[in-house]
């Protein structure tokens, strides 16, 4: 059961909203997100902390933790249906078997008291795998494939592994049940540069070999630039821009994306050229309820941004939600209204 030629499933996230219950009422962490993961591609979601990207990742498995909940929308996975509608054992079996989730490297995603092998067997038993020796064999070959001594790793405890090794174990556990949709949450954060590069190469290679549909969540544009086919930029719970990675990075249309790119210091050239975005990203309670979420920090802010929901413009393979992006060259493109409110002003 190593490499299957089963077609990678597509994933369609539509109008997804997640709210968190707080003392100030229910506050939205993710608002009206539409995102399609094409079969067999790697999609990167970029955003600062608090942009709702991790919540979006958890929504893929219908695993938003209380006090949060998915308030509307759906996550359709080919061959599975709407994950948001799944409950109980059906939901549990979807996690792990159909959708793999890889934790942030800095986090300890393994039980410190059990060897990796024992946890692998727990995973197998949870998903009613009859052929446990086969599962171990598969795990070992996956680990070997990622450049580890599989047999030895399975016999180790978490604390005996380095960060990069743990991350590969995390990838193994996400794939060993043959999941074809994989979500990676900050897969390279807190790893050193060389290990980071190795992990990214492994993700790319395994993705291709096994025919996966992959979602990578990161705050690091560099990671996305390296592996993602498509790129989605999140800010304040909204998707502000998405499109093919090269096009978005080459010619960003949303002022936030432009700001992110300008903030990256170049290896060559003047360090002063890197300009940090002024201000801070909004938190749950400071996200403005009306108008554009980015306006406080925006360089091209207009009056309409205060009240009007930015229109979602689809320009070829690209989507951008900004009042300013509609000006200039692309008036001919289709203009769709924002999903939650129709008070769009052109």
């Amino acid at each position, binding site marked *: 059961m190593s490499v299957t030629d089963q077609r990678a499933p597509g994933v369609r996230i539509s109008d997804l909203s997640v709210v968190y219950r707080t003392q100030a009422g229910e506050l939205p962490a993710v608002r009206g997100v539409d995102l399609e993961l094409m079969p067999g591609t790697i999609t990167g979601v970029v955003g600062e902390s608090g942009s709702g990207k991790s919540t979006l990742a*958890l929504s893929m*498995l219908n*695993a938003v*933790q209380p006090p949060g909940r998915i308030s509307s929308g759906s996550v359709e996975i080919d061959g599975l249906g709407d994950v948001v509608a799944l409950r109980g054992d059906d939901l*549990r*079996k*979807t*996690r*792990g*078997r159909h959708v793999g*989730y890889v*934790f942030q490297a800095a*986090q*300890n*995603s*393994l*039980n*410190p*008291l*059990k*060897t990796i092998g024992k946890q692998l067997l*727990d*995973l197998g*038993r*949870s*998903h009613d795998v009859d052929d446990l020796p086969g599962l171990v064999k598969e795990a070992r070959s996956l680990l070997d494939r*990622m*450049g*580890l*001594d599989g047999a*030895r*790793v399975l016999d*180790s*405890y978490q*604390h*005996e*592994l*380095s960060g*990069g*090794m743990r991350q590969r174990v*995390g990838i193994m*556990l*996400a794939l060993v049940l043959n999941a074809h949709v994989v979500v990676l949450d900050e897969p390279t954060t807190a790893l050193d540069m*060389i*290990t980071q590069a*190795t992990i990214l190469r492994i993700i790319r290679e395994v993705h291709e070999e096994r025919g996966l549909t992959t979602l990578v969540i990161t705050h690091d544009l560099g990671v996305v630039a390296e592996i993602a086919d498509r790129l989605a930029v999140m800010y304040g719970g909204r998707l502000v821009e998405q499109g093919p990675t090269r096009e978005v990075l080459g010619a960003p249309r949303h002022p936030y994306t432009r700001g992110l790119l300008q903030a990256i210091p170049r290896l060559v050239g003047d360090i002063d050229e890197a300009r940090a975005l002024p201000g801070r990203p909004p938190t749950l309670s400071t996200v403005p309820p009306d108008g554009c979420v980015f306006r406080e920090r925006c360089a091209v802010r207009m009056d309409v941004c205060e009240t009007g929901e930015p229109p979602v413009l689809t320009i070829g393979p690209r989507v951008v939600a900004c009042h300013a992006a509609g000006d200039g060259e692309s008036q001919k493109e289709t203009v769709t209204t924002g999903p939650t409110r129709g008070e769009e002003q052109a």
Partner: protein
Amino acid sequence: MTLIGVPGRSGGIAVVRRLAGHLARGLVMILVVTTISFLIIRNIPGDPMAAKYEKLVEQGMSPEAAQQAVNVLYGFMPTGSMWQQYLDYMKGLAHFDLGQSLTVPGTGVGTVLMSAAKWTLIPVLAGTLLSFLVGIILGVYAAIKRQGKLGDLLAISGSLLHGVPQYVLALLLGAIFTTLIPILPAGGTADIMFEPGLNAGYIGSLIQHATLPVVTYALASYGGWILAMKSSVVTVLGDDFILAAELRGMKRSIIFRYIARNAILPLFTILALSLGMLFGGAIFIERIFNYPGLGLMLIDSITGRDYALMGGAFLLITVAIIIANIAADLLYTVIDPRVRSGGEAA
């Protein structure tokens, strides 16, 4: 960069080092405790040692013979410098010679203590085990239901029982079950009408007499377990690997085992301390229920001015605590692989 290798497992050496540390600390503690005993015996108002010596001489004993007799009683000569006395006392202790008991004339302190030890050890262990089991099970429950009324109730009852001193519990239980509803005996180890030995009557009577002490021990420590387990479970519930297991679709029963095992772990250090506290509590409980264990022996030796016995009982209680510490630590080593390989403890 791929095969950094699994860090070495110096398990055995680490355990030996920890054990050696414990033993060294235990020896220092024994030294401190025996020195306190010595200083007190030597400085007791009215100098019982000199009084005894003079009495023996008055009774017609030669000064040398009287000195020897007192030496046998206390472990050092009534005359001579303090340092000489101290060294004699310590030398005696090193040969497990604790002196002679006054209350049970002609018997070594060691023998008297050993016969009392079982009346403390067995009820204390039974009570601890009982409360540990009930406490951790209810502690998990209190943690899971911590938002609800029942969880609150469990936590408050735990705090109250934990806060109330053992003698208050013992007195209340005694007042209820021996005075108001006299269904349990008020004191002693067994009814004298039964012949000690393996007959049903005697054993039944033993159990009947042990009920109040054991239940008091159990109730006194139960509160501590439920509180400690609750906060430990709440901590573990917030750990990443629990969410990770959930996202891998692990079965609830398996996740529950992960939580339980990780949460119980820190409780083993408390186990050692609580055993120490119970030996202190035993003094009250044995006094109240007239149960002839080490605690009662310590009080009787103080009120009966049997100072050799007092020093011996104090020493034995200290040694018991040291042993409890070591045992708890070894147990910890068995269940926590991180300690086993000399890494950091949880």
